């Protein structure tokens, strides 16, 4: 470098990578082969995890970060950014993932939480973090802990978009409400949202989250992806929706194109032809409350 100081892991550098992924699709992958399929299909990043949410739901047991061997293979296999999931509160899994060269860590409710009280102190890391949220208060608490990107939680592994829609609408409406309040009303609003006051003030004045907000949890079709984009999210995470479907490569491409052309119904119709079987969906009210992943890490 030149004589001038340079800094790694600043807010701008961490949040900036998420800015570069806007309008794109991030796909869950378990193996390097799946990562190559995702990259070839036009994913802007891949998410490495031990098992996709539908399999975690089906087989049960404790879900942890992926085997470092698999993560390393995925990092080597693609040139797009590689994200990886760590358990909520498991800062050592996060340290390991940072060492492996992962570009973003998802502190995720899809895995079994390691700490039921505390999230990871994400400011302590150079690598940026994404976290799930169901409403504005959760989103701002995670940003307060250092998250550089937010995604809706939805209900992972269900192929049912209803919870992602609920969470996106909730956040949008809470943000809109904040912008209508007077300065003297913000402190009690921060109390009700259980959110850091400074961030509440910032959102009230800008009318948006200070970081990029993707949709996740139940997106299974190109129309699902376009729905979330039209509801105002910045991009899409697809988990089980791709590699639990009949023809992953074709469905992955279709979801990418529907996300890019999300307001063009002709384009969405065109890419939705002949995709093969979608993943089998699960109705949320058939899932016992204690098995709902969105209830983890609030």
């Amino acid at each position, binding site marked *: *470098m*030149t004589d*001038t*100081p*340079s*800094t*790694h*892991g*600043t807010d*701008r*550098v961490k949040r*900036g*990578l998420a*800015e*570069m*992924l*806007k*309008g*794109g699709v991030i796909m869950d992958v378990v193996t390097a082969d799946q990562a190559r399929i995702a*990259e070839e299909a*036009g*994913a*802007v*990043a891949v998410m490495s995890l031990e098992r996709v949410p539908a399999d975690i739901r089906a087989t049960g047991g404790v879900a942890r970060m992926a085997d470092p061997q698999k993560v390393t293979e995925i*990092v080597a296999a693609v*040139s*797009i*950014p590689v994200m990886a999931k760590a358990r909520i509160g498991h800062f050592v899994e996060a340290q390991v993932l*940072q060492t492996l*060269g*992962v*570009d*973003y860590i998802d502190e995720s409710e899809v895995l079994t939480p390691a700490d039921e009280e505390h999230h990871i102190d994400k400011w302590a890391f*150079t*690598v*940026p973090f994404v976290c799930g949220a169901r409403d504005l208060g959760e989103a701002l608490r995670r940003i307060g802990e250092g998250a550089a990107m937010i995604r809706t939680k939805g209900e992972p592994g269900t192929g049912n978009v209803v919870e992602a829609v609920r969470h996106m609408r909730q956040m949008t409406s809470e943000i809109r409400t904040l912008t209508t309040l007077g300065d003297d009303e913000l402190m009690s609003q921060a109390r009700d949202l259980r959110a850091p006051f400074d961030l509440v003030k910032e959102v009230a004045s800008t009318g948006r989250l200070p970081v990029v907000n993707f949709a996740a949890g139940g997106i299974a079709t190109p129309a699902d992806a376009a729905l979330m984009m039209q509801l105002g999210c910045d991009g899409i995470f697809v988990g089980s929706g791709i590699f639990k479907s009949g023809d992953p490569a074709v469905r992955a491409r279709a979801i*990418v*194109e529907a996300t*890019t*052309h999300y307001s063009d119904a002709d384009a969405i119709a065109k890419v939705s032809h002949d995709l093969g079987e979608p993943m089998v969906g699960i109705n949320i009210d058939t899932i016992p409350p204690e098995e709902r992943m969105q209830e983890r890490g609030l």
Partner: protein
Amino acid sequence: MVRSLGAEVVEVRLPEHLDGLDALIIPGGESTTIGRLAGLYGLLEPMAEVIESGLPVLGTCAGMIVLATGTTEGDQAQLGVLDVVVRRNAFGRQVDSYEAPIPVSGWDEPITGVFIRAPWIAKAGDDVEILATVDDELSGDARPVFVRQRNVIATAFHPELTDDARVHEMLLSMAAAAKEL
């Protein structure tokens, strides 16, 4: 950014969106994804044509890769309107991403270069004016990260992530000059 400078902005997703533009910005993102989707929707050739016929264009990070004639890795859909060979992810992975003040030739104040999984220019043609470089820590060589060739400007860093509008002003003044011709 350009909106704050008084320009009207349209998003280009399909070839017909190129009609009537005074300047074009190819932003940061994932160059593989941009190249693939641009190819699929028939944008690459029309984009190369309007740029070759003089439309001012700015490419940042992935946008620089898309404008270039080649990458050191090969195998990438590119426009070939900027005579440089680019090395993708030249600085390393996200943990190596950084920001630093970068001196620019002819400017009094340096610009804050925000490098995010950024490329650099490995080889530039004779017509390419090099406006800023950073030193390659391994070889000690100066690697171009801000260049101009006729109507094409490109940065390896992201001026759009800062409040510094000078690069975008440069594009708009090129657009204004092109309109007067």
